[in-house]
């Protein structure tokens, strides 16, 4: 991957097609955002009943500080023609087999120009690792990772909705609350997967943790609001009848992980079941029941661990 030869094309329904070098991109005004990058199918392996696809537990997500340029500034440099309705993104990766659908994703024009969607060249202050999309990747804060096209080298402005396989057929969710249907349901409308939903996790205790009767137990973890910030994170020690607020860590921005922590007291005997739930700044709270869809997308059920008391 030659940093001097690489070119980012901007073409299609624009006034002037562009071919930007990395030096051109580096010379533009830059922005920075801390944002969670989460796979559409993160936690798919936990679906019940099970579904096919990458069998993730909860690890298909990460948080980083992304540095780059606004997509809007790149688009405005080319100039959008009247009638532009969407922007499609393509990376250097290609299918292994001729005729297979090349991976491309698109955003509608207002979203693309919102000033938050950006083209990153750095992750946590370093150039992008190859596996994270060197030299450029798209950052769509608050939306699932399928849109965060890696090795981004082609931006095409469209004057009609994108019909490509990866928007029209793949990565679609039921158009229903929590993107949830029942196994065996059919005939429901689908939409392209889009914004993320709130989630929270325990990071210092698991089902294998043992605590002493009556001891003080520090419990902590991370949370994120989805497509907006974290308003509060609460824990319950009685299977969700009562909830208590936790302390939130530093606010790194609406799209970032937020640390949470609290002190609890272990019971005298038996088990210590714990639930954690996040409410975001749009007052959306994690559901107590897990969603289900055939694609294994958008899981965000309240997480539970059960500590042993001994």
């Amino acid at each position, binding site marked *: 991957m030659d*940093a001097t030869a690489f070119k980012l094309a901007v073409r299609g329904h624009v006034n002037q097609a562009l071919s930007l070098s990395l030096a*051109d991109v580096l010379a533009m005004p830059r922005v920075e955002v801390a944002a969670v990058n989460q796979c559409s199918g993160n936690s798919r392996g936990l679906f019940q009943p099970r579904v*096919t696809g990458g069998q993730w537990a909860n690890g*298909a*997500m990460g948080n980083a500080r992304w540095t780059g340029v606004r997509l809007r500034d790149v688009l405005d440099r080319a100039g959008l023609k009247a009638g532009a309705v969407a922007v499609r993104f393509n990376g250097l*990766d290609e299918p292994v087999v001729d005729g*297979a659908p090349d991976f491309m994703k698109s955003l509608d024009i207002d979203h693309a120009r919102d000033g938050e969607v950006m083209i990153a060249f750095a992750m946590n202050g370093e150039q992008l*690792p190859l596996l994270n999309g060197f030299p450029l990747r798209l950052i769509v804060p608050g939306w699932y990772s399928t849109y965060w096209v*890696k090795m981004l080298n082609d931006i095409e402005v469209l004057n009609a909705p994108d019909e490509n396989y990866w928007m029209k057929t793949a990565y679609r969710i039921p158009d229903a609350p929590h993107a949830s249907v029942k196994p065996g349901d059919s005939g429901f409308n689908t939409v392209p997967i889009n914004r993320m939903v709130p989630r929270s996790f325990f990071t210092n205790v698991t089902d294998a943790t043992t605590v002493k009767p009556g001891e003080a137990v520090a419990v902590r973890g991370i949370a994120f609001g989805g497509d907006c910030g974290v308003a509060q994170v609460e824990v319950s020690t009685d299977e969700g009848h009562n909830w208590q607020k936790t302390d939130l860590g530093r606010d790194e921005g609406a799209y970032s992980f937020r640390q949470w922590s609290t002190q609890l007291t272990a019971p005298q005997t038996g088990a210590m079941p714990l639930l954690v739930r996040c409410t975001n700044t749009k007052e959306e709270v994690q559901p107590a029941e897990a969603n289900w869809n055939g694609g294994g997308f958008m899981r965000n059920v309240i997480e539970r661990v059960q500590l042993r008391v001994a």
Partner: protein
Amino acid sequence: MSLSIGTIAYGAVVIAGVTLFTIGTPDQHERRTAPAAPAAAAETGKAAPAPSVATGGGTTLHSVSFDIPNGERTFPGGAAADAINNNCLACHSAGMVLTQPAVSRSVWQGEVDKMRNFYKAPVAAADVPAIVDYLAKLADRKSPAMSGPPAR
């Protein structure tokens, strides 16, 4: 690059943790150098040219050279696995398949059809029954990966 949704996700593994071990820190300059035209260097006996970088706004991006390792894992089962080994490792790993939950024969048939129809997997129609048969019998192998939810 791989084709299926899951495989793409599978390939984007190192996001969490944000490690640079694959590419190295800026100190590991040599590793980041794009390979010079190897033939030219061999002919002339000269050292590789200076690494190519792009700079601007106080930032330097270094060219990257990276050998993506090939997986060695194959489908177990001897002759019964011949059809799947010969057809299905071109695009994704055996692991991608072997970690799937235990689903019915008709679901496996649907997956193989998807591979051939949507992703243009070059699988001869004559090979499909043996592949579906192997997949349908995966649960019988009682692999821990096939039963119940995965370990957290």
